[in-house]
């Protein structure tokens, strides 16, 4: 392999700053990308990685700084310019129009055809050729909404290749994939490198950096903290650079004997999704007080429908939900909350908080109709504020005061407001869905320790997570969810991520 100094620099940033109304997302960022290399940009959630990439891609305009492509200074006024000069980007949240077909999504913006009309025949042909050239198999006529996440990502990559991308930016590409799919993706990436494409991967996972990259930049709080050749670096050093201290990502989990009598049971549950297709298919499980049951699965296998059904946000087709022995399947959400069932939803901004309302109001919500929050029909605002004040201290929420609107808080502090509300209701059963999504290491550690604290108070915890790391860190038992049913129960001490991943993708046990 040619030494680094000989390799041509094809993309370079000099002194890039990005100021958002309230945050300085990037400051003085200088990075270089060499031709035909895989470069990782490592950083925590909120470190400013995506912002930087969106600047490279022309979506955001930098407040200051310059970019050079093949040594020439470039200014992108929109992604159009970036695309024309050979940049492609696969966003963390896929930029695919769900109601259009694979072909339509791939050709969008650079459609073949003379004049105003699209030549669909030509388009299909080109998509087919492309998918054959790179070995990325796909049905060109499938609707995006019917594809799995892994296939959707494939469409995104094809979209970039269709535009002849020479530089490909991948934003957290493995976030939603199973270990098997990750391997497959890495294979594709290496093949692309072989054909001369330069690749930037944004990630917060240390293993990934070591697995795939040639070189890595570490970004912390918007600044480049260091640059390393992957071959000369180890995990500890990377973690240190990324967080600024040595981190042990596994929270200490003390052994805790659960009570034998289950607090919450699900029997043969059937639930439909928004399009009235079955999403939960005869799911059965039980949770005992004082244990954390982790549900592992690829996104879209019925997780959100299951959570909705448990909380009464979606009708149950058939099956029973037993809480302390009585069936709650027909009860309203309000009654369920009244029965001391607590819920930390996956999408905190959509389902967890009313962002325009104050912290005090958000903490009172749900119990706003009873003492001490209300007297008769009147709300007792001073009492609500006092309680919020207390919980702000207890949960270490960084906020000016109880009357601050929840929308002004950072993601981690918003999640803490939700925890403050849900964990202080003296729950007997706790449903937690993706509790640390998009949070930085400090917040993750805090939330994990709080969940384990609930466990040691003999609360039954059911945790749905897409991050296997999280499942292994917290769960006493792992249930693998596939196509709306539990296909396997595993003991975290006697299994590994590969085995869980195998069952997550519908793998069957060998009949031995």
């Amino acid at each position, binding site marked *: 392999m040619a030494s680094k100094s000989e390799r041509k620099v094809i993309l370079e940033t000099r002194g890039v700053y990005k100021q*958002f*109304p*309230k*945050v300085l*997302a990037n400051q003085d960022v200088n990075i270089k990308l060499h031709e035909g290399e895989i470069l990782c940009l490592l950083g925590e*959630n*909120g470190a*400013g990685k*995506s*912002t930087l990439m969106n600047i490279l*891609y022309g*979506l*955001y*305009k930098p407040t200051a700084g310059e970019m050079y492509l093949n040594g020439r200074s470039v200014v992108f006024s*929109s*992604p*159009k*310019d*970036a*695309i*024309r000069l050979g940049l492609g*980007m696969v*966003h963390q949240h*896929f*930029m*695919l*129009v*769900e*109601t*259009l077909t694979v072909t*339509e*999504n791939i050709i*969008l*913006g*650079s*459609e073949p*055809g003379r004049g*105003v*009309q*699209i030549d669909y025949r030509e388009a299909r042909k080109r998509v087919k050729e492309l998918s054959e050239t790179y070995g990325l198999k796909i049905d060109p006529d499938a609707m995006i909404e019917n594809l799995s996440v892994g296939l959707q990502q494939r469409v995104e990559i094809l*979209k970039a290749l269709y*535009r002849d991308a020479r530089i490909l930016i991948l934003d957290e590409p493995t976030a939603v994939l199973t270990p098997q799919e990750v391997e497959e993706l890495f294979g594709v990436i290496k093949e692309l490198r072989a054909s001369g494409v330069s690749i930037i991967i944004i990630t917060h996972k240390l293993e990934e950096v070591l697995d795939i990259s040639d070189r890595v930049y570490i970004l912390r709080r918007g600044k480049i903290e260091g640059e390393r050749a992957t071959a000369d670096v180890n995990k500890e050093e990377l973690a240190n650079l990324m967080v600024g201290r040595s981190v042990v990502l596994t929270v200490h989990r003390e052994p805790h004997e659960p009570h034998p009598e289950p607090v919450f049971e699900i029997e043969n549950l059937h639930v439909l999704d928004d399009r009235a297709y079955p999403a939960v298919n005869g799911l059965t499980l039980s949770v005992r007080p004082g244990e954390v049951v982790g549900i592992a699965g690829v996104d879209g296998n019925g997780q959100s429908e299951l959570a909705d059904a448990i909380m009464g946000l979606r009708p149950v087709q058939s099956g029973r939900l037993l809480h302390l022995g009585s069936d709650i399947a027909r009860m309203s959400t309000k009654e369920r909350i009244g029965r001391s069932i607590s819920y930390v939803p996956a999408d905190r901004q959509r389902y967890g908080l009313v962002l325009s309302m104050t912290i005090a109001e958000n903490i009172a919500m749900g119990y706003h109709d009873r003492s001490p929050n209300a007297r008769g029909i009147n709300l007792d605002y001073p009492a609500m504020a006092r309680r919020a004040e207390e919980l702000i201290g207890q949960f270490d929420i960084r906020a000016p005061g109880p009357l601050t609107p929840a929308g002004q808080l*950072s*993601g981690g502090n918003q999640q803490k407001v939700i925890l403050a509300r849900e964990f202080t209701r003296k729950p007997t059963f706790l449903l937690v869905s993706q509790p640390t999504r*998009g949070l930085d290491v400090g917040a993750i550690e805090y939330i994990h320790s709080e969940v384990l604290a609930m466990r040691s108070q003999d609360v039954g915890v059911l945790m749905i997570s897409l991050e296997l790391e999280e499942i292994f860190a917290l769960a006493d038992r792992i249930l693998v969810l596939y196509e709306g049913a539990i296909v396997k129960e595993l003991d975290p001490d006697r299994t590994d991520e590969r085995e869980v991943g195998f069952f997550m993708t519908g793998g069957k046990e060998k009949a031995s």
Partner: protein
Amino acid sequence: MNVLSIFNTDLLVAMVRLSTPITLAAIGATICERSGVVNIAMEGIMIVGAFFAAVVAYFTGSPWLGLVAGVFAGGVYSMIHAAATVSLHLDHTVSGAVLNILAFGLTRYLMVLVFGHPGTSEPIARTLGNFQVAIPLLSRIPVIGPIFFNQTPIVYLSFVMVIFFTWFLKKTKTGLHVRASGEHPLALETIGVSVYRMRYLGVIVSGLMGGLAGAYLSIENSASFTEGMTNGKGFIAMAAMISGGWRPVGAFLASLFFGFADALQIRFQVFKVLQVPEEIFIIFPYIATLLAVAGLVRRSRPPKADGVDFMIERPEE
């Protein structure tokens, strides 16, 4: 008198005529909402279009110039909606409501200014209603011929528009961009097509179509402008758009249904079928619209980003 005698070809001819403004406005609104902008200002756009069409037709004596003026006025007026919702990020319904209010004030003011009095304008000598054209051969087909192929210019134009915009959405590049802009605007922006541009386009199309619908009211279906002559048709057009599942052909069919309800009530009124006040018949189309929206809304799916403001740079979480 036999009630059944009402149901004849004339009724269906009237149906097509009465549905034309609704069809045009509904197609305009469909394109607008497919691009992601909710437009409840169709009523206001129509009244502006109707006024300018009438004024120009009255003073120049040429209904064709009136037609152009009406369409143009609608387009210009809708630009305010586009600027407000797309560039100024104003809530779409609020902007639409304000534009409706403004349109009625504006036309009343201009009415006094131009004609010297509020209410109804002086009659227009030559209107597009005078240009009834029977299409050779096609108009001879029994039943269908007289209904669809012996009509006035804007009615024909509305047929063309149904076909044109169906083709536009399904087959053209811009049509694909418009659809993407209403479903997932950021996806469109990230491949280098301006969402703002698509949304401006969508709103302006609705303005041109609304202006055309207004022109139909004042210089083809009648021969003068009257304040408030749209009479809720802009809102019925929205109902047609929803019932038609945000598709031009669907909107056309729904509009025909509302036109039918209207034609029927006029006949009931004229023939005094039942001994009840005539107003009971007048409200018939409104009730029909209400029921249609209530019954069909569940089955049709609006564009996902319909009415959702689009702004590129938001700080990350």
